[in-house]
C-alpha cells in the first residue's frame, strides 16, 4: 500500500520503503537529497528541518518540521520541500541569497535547516524579532552566534513576500504498508475506535514528536500503527459556551490562536513547547498520552480543571485530567480507548491564569519546574487558587496543601508565609541532570512568591525576558 506525496515539486508514490523509516533517512538514502542533515536525530538541533505543505483554503500552508523524527508514513498527502527544492534553476532562492550575503554560514552544517526555517517564516509575512527567534528556536548554530542569521531573517521579512505557484496536494491514502509494517490512516472517529479495538497491539501515532525518537534514536520501527492525524473529530477546535474544546489530534501550532485568545499565559507557554518544528506536529493528545512528569500542558490542564474525553467501543466519557493522570507516564486510558478531546473551562470573571516554565535555556528546553496558577483575588484576599506543578513529582500534580494554606488568607503587601512547608508536603521532587531537588523546591516556592508579586505589584519586573 503506497503513500503519495510531492517532493520538491515531483509526485512520489512510495511503496517500497518502510512506513517507519524516518523522513531524514528516506531523503538522504533513498531520494539522494543529502542537503538535509542529521545533527542529533532527536528533534533538537534543526539541521534536518524541512518544510511540509498542506492545503489550506486556496493555498498551501508551509510548516517547518524535523525530518529526523518524522516517519515516512506521515508524509502521506503532503507537499515536501527540502533545501534542494527551493531554488529554481541554478540560482539561489531569496532566502538562500540573503543568508549567504549576510555571512550567515560558517561551517554550513546547520545552514540547510536554517534556510528551511527562514523559508517558512517568510511565508508568514512580516514578523518581529520575537517571531524570528521563535522561528529559529528549533535551529542550533554552533558557529555564527546567530547575529547574521537574525539579520538575514529581518531582511527577508522586510522584503516583499514572494508568491508561490499553487500546487495541488496529493490525494491521501488510507494506509501505508511495506516491509512487514502497516500504518493505518482512519479519517473518522468511528473508524479509529474500531481499529483501536481490533488492534490493541497497534501503536497510536499522532505527531510522533515523542514516538519518533523510537525510530530515529532506538532505530526500531512500528510494525502496526494507527495514525490520528486525519481523524476529523480529533482535529476540531470548538468554542463551547463555557469551555474551549480541543480535539486530541490538534497540533500546538493549530491550537495556538484559540488558546492564546482564551488563555494568554497558556498561549505564551505553547510558544515555548519545543520549537516551531515540534509544534507543527506535536499534539495535545500526545502530551497527555505520554503523561510525562514534565509534559508542559499537563499542569496547566490541572489548574484549569480540564477534562479529557476518552472514546472506546462502549462509547465516550469525560474524565478530569487529574484522574486521567495516574502516575509516572501512566494514565487511565484503557487499551481499547483513544483520547478524543479536551475541555478547557474558560476563566470566570476575576480569575487569572499564570503559567511559568523554568528551564536551563529559555527556548526549546524541557521544564525543570513548571507552575500553573489559576487564581482569584478580591479585597486583599486570595479567594480561590488552583495550583499545579510539573517537574516536582512523578506526574504533573495539584499542590493541594499549598492551595489550602493560601486560600482565604490575606493577599496584600506582605508575602504569604508557609510556602515551603506546604510545598514540602505536596511534593518530594527528585534530582536529575536538569536540577537538584533543592533547586526544584526553592524555585517552586519562589514561583509562588512571583505569583504574589504579579498579583500585587504590577510595577515590578518579574522575568528577565520581559526586559
Amino acid at each position, binding site marked *: 500500500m503506497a503513500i503519495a506525496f510531492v517532493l520538491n515539486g515531483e509526485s512520489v508514490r512510495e511503496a517500497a520503503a518502510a512506513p517507519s523509516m524516518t523522513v531524514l533517512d528516506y531523503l*538522504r538514502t533513498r531520494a539522494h537529497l*543529502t*542537503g*538535509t*542533515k542529521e545533527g*542529533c*536525530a*532527536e*528533534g*533538537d538541533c534543526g539541521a534536518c528541518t524541512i518544510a511540509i505543505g498542506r492545503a489550506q483554503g486556496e493555498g498551501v500552508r508551509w510548516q517547518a518540521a524535523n525530518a529526523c523524527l518524522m516517519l515516512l508514513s506521515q508524509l502521506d498527502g503532503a507537499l515536501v520541500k527540502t533545501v*534542494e527544492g527551493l*531554488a529554481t534553476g541554478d540560482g*539561489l532562492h531569496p532566502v*538562500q*541569497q540573503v*543568508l*549567504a550575503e549576510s*555571512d550567515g*554560514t*560558517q*561551517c*554550513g*552544517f*546547520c*545552514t*540547510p535547516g536554517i*534556510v528551511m526555517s527562514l523559508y517558512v517564516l517568510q511565508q508568514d509575512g512580516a514578523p518581529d*524579532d520575537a517571531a*524570528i*527567534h521563535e522561528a*529559529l*528556536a528549533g535551529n*542550533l548554530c*554552533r*558557529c*555564527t*552566534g*546567530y547575529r*547574521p542569521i*537574525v539579520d538575514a531573517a529581518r531582511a527577508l521579512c522586510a522584503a516583499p513576500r514572494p508568491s508561490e505557484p499553487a500546487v495541488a496536494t496529493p490525494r491521501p491514502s488510507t494506509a501505508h504498508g511495506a516491509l512487514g509494517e502497516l500504518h493505518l490512516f482512519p479519517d473518522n472517529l468511528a473508524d479509529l475506535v474500531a481499529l483501536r479495538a481490533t488492534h490493541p497491539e497497534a501503536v497510536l501515532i499522532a505527531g510522533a514528536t515523542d514516538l519518533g525518537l523510537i525510530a530515529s*534514536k532506538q*532505530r526500531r520501527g512500528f510494525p502496526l500503527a494507527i495514525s490520528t492525524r486525519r481523524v476529523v473529530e480529533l482535529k476540531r477546535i470548538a468554542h463551547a459556551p463555557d469551555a474551549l474544546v480541543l480535539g486530541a489530534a490538534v497540533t500546538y501550532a493549530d491550537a495556538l490562536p484559540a488558546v492564546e485568545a482564551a488563555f494568554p499565559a497558556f498561549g505564551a507557554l505553547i510558544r515555548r513547547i519545543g520549537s516551531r518544528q515540534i509544534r507543527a506536529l506535536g499534539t495535545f493528545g500526545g502530551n497527555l498520552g505520554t503523561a510525562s512528569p514534565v509534559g508542559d500542558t499537563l499542569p496547566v490542564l490541572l489548574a484549569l480543571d480540564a477534562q479529557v474525553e476518552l472514546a472506546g467501543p462502549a462509547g465516550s466519557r469525560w474524565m478530569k485530567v487529574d484522574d486521567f493522570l495516574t502516575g509516572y507516564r501512566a494514565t487511565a486510558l484503557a487499551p481499547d480507548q483513544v483520547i478524543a478531546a479536551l475541555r478547557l473551562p474558560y476563566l470566570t470573571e476575576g480569575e487569572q491564569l499564570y503559567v511559568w516554565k*523554568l528551564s*536551563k535555556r*529559555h*527556548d526549546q528546553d*524541557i521544564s525543570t519546574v513548571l507552575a500553573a496558577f489559576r487564581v482569584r483575588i478580591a479585597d486583599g484576599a486570595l479567594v480561590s487558587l488552583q495550583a499545579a506543578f510539573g517537574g516536582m513529582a512523578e506526574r504533573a500534580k495539584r499542590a493541594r496543601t499549598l492551595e489550602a494554606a493560601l486560600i482565604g488568607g490575606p493577599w496584600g503587601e506582605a508575602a504569604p508565609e508557609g510556602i515551603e512547608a506546604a510545598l514540602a508536603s505536596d511534593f518530594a521532587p527528585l534530582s536529575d541532570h536538569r536540577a*537538584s531537588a*533543592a*533547586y526544584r*523546591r*526553592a524555585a517552586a516556592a519562589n514561583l509562588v512568591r*512571583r505569583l504574589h*508579586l504579579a498579583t500585587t505589584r504590577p510595577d*515590578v*519586573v*518579574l*522575568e*528577565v525576558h520581559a*526586559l
Partner: protein
Amino acid sequence: MSRVVHVPARHESASAHVSGRALYLDDMPEPPGLLHGALVLSPHPHARIVSMDLSAARALPGVVAVAAGDVPGVNDIAPIRSGEPALAQGVVEYVGHPVAAVAAPTLDEARAAAALVKIEYEKLPALLDLDEAIAAGARVAPDQMVGRGDVDGALADAPHRIAGEVRCGGQDHFYLEGQIAIAVPGEDRDMQVYSSTQHPTEAQHGVAHVLGLPFAAVTVEVRRMGGAFGGKESQATIIAAIAALLAHHARKPVKLRLPRDVDMEATGKRHPFRIRWDAGFDGEGRLAGLDLELAADCGNVADLSPAVVSRALCHADNCYFIPAARYRGLLVKTNTVSNTAFRGFGAPQGMLAIEAVMETVARHLGRPIEEVRAANFYGDAPRNLTPYGQEVEDNIIAEVVAHLDGAADLAAWRRDIATFNATSPIIRKGLATMPIKFGVSFNLTTLNQAGALVHVYTDGSVHLNHGGTEMGQGLFVKVAQVVADAFGIPLDHVRVSATSTAKVPNTSPTAASSGSDLNGMAALIAAREIRGRMAGVAGARFGVPAEEVVFADGRVSAGNQSLSFSEAARLAWQERVQLSAAGFYRTPKIHFDLATAQGRPFYYYTYGAAATEVAVDTLTGDVRVLRAEIVQDCGRSLNPAIDLGQVEGAFVQGLGWLTCEELKWDAAGRLATRGPSTYKIPGSRDVPPDFRVHLLDRPNREETVLRSKAVGEPPLMLAISVWLAIRDAIAGLAGEGPIRLDAPATPERVLEAVAVRRGHAGAG
C-alpha cells in the same frame, strides 16, 4: 579591480552551504560495497576486560567485528605521550570507552551487530570525582609549573592577602556534524581515509600506527568539516583509526559516523578545572604575589592535556604583571572521557582564574575592578615580563580598554543599570568588563610550521592547497584572498582544494587560532615564488627588470606594457618556466623550553575587551545577557566579515560555556547529558539583543601575513564578562555574604549564589 584582501569576502562555500550542495563526508556518494560502522562502548567507568566474544556479531552476514586484538600494528594513537589505544586494551577507563567496533552493510545492521558483542568485565574502583582524584594523586602526566620570584615571601609581606577557590565546568564541542571517517582500502594495503579532522597528519599517523603501515601508504583528506572547535583534533584520529581498522579487515570501504549520543559519550571535551589561589596585594590592588593551582580534569588519558595545561598556565597572567608567581598545573586523572582541545585550549580556564582573583581583590578593597586591573596591567620593563619569560612587546591593552570605554560609555551604562536596580527588587542587572591578552603560536614550537602548494594554470586560474583545514572558520577564503592579492587577480580565480596529506605533508593541526597565520604565509611564499618567475618572463618580454613588473587588476604590467594574467601564465609556460611552487613557513623568533616553562612561546599577542550587561532573576536564577560591546584586535584584518563572524561566534560559545552548557554524569559515571535535549548550547534568543562588535584595525607589529592577527579563539574569553556580570548583579544585592558562583552559572547555581550572598547558605 577592487582590493581582495582587508575587505569583507564571503565564505568560499557560502553558496554551496545555503543551497545544500556543500558535501560533508556523510553526503559523499558512497563507494561500492561500503560498510557502515558502529562502536561498542564500555558501560563501566573502570573495569578489566575478562573476555570478549565477537562470534555472534561475526556470524551475521557481511559483518566484520574488531577489538584491540585485531590491530595489526600498534594500538596507540596518543598525540603527545604514549599508551593511548584506539580500542580499549585489557581495561576500560570510562563509560563510553570504545571497546570494539563492527561494520555491516547497513547502519541498522551494524548497530544490531554491535549489540551482539559479548564482553565480560571485572569492575575496578573508579575515580569519578575531581577532588578525590586530586587527593589520590591520580595523574595522566607530570604536574607543571610556571613561575618566578619568592611567592611565599611576597604573600607574607603583602598588606592584604586573600585566598579563594572557584570551579569551571567542561564543555562539549557540539559541532553540528558529528565525528565521521570513511576508510577506503586501496592497492597493496594502501589506505585512503576521508576524515572530518582538524589534523589530517595526525589521523594519517594514527591510521598508519594501527595498521602497521608506513605513513606514505596512508592518505588522509578533508574538504570541510561541519564545525570542529578543537573537538576534531586528536578525537578525529580515534574515529579514523577505527574506521581504517574495520576497512582493513573487511577489505571494503567503511564509514564510521557517530550518532550524537555516542559522539558525546565517547569523545573528549573541554577540561573542567578546580582553581585555588592565594594572592597578596597592596591597597590599590596591585598584586605582589600569586600562588595559583589549576587542577585540570584530564579524564582517563593525557591526550592533549599537557599542552592544554601549559597554555592555561601561560594565560593565567592575562594582561597582568605579577612580580612573584607560582602557577601550578595538575593533570588529574579521572575515569571519565579524556578531555581534549577546545577553542581557547586551557586559556579560558587560566583567564577565568586570574579574573576571579582580580574581582575578589577589587571587592575586598571596595575599588572598581577596572582600576585594580589597570594597576596590574603589563607596562614598561621590568613590568613587561611574563612568568614564562617572554617580554610583552606589543602591549596595547590600555588602548583597547580605552576604546571600549569610548564606544560603550561605561559610566553612563553603569548609571542606567543603577537606576534600573533602584526600583527592581527581583530582576537585578549587572555589568562587567573583561580585558584579554592572548598569545598566538602553538606552545610547542615545532608545530609552528606550514606548507602550501600553489599552481597557476595557463588560463590564469590558480589552484591552492595548504595544510590548513576548513571547519567553517573561513580559512580557505582568507588564504585564497592572500594568494589572489599576491597575483593581483580576482578572488574567484583562485580555487581551494581539499586538504590532503598527499599534497602537503607533515602538517600541524589547524588549531591555536594559527590557521591563517601559518598557512596564509606558506601560501604567500609559494605565490610570491611563482610571481617572481612570471615577473622574470614578463619583464623579459617588456624589456624591463623583473622588479618593475606589477601584478594588479588581473594584469601583469610594466609602464604602458601589459599582459593579462592568463597571457602572462601562458607565456611562462611557453618559456618553460615552472608555474607551480610549494611554500613553507616557520614562525620566526619563537622558542620554548617545556622543561623549565621559559622562553618566548608566542610570536605575538592579540588583545580585546568586552563589556556585558546581564539581568538576573533572583527568584529563579534565570539569566539573560542583554547587551555586549566588544573591541577585538585583529591586526590588519584579512577579511573583516570573517573576523566579525569569529568574534561573535566565539563570544556566544563562551557565553554557553559559562551559563547554560552543563555536563552532568550519573552516579555510575555515565554522561547524562548526551544530546541537545539535555545539553543546552545557546540558541538565537540567548545572544545579547544589543550586540556590538568593533574590530580594531591596527597592523600587527610582527611580520605576520599582511600584518593580520589570529582571531579564532581570543574572543571566546571575552565571554568571561558574562560570568563576571552575573557576579556583579549578585554583589549588588543587599547582603554581606561572599560571591560564590562557579561556572557554568546555571539557574540553579545562580539561585544558590543569591542565597549565599543574602546569608541563607544552602537554602536557595
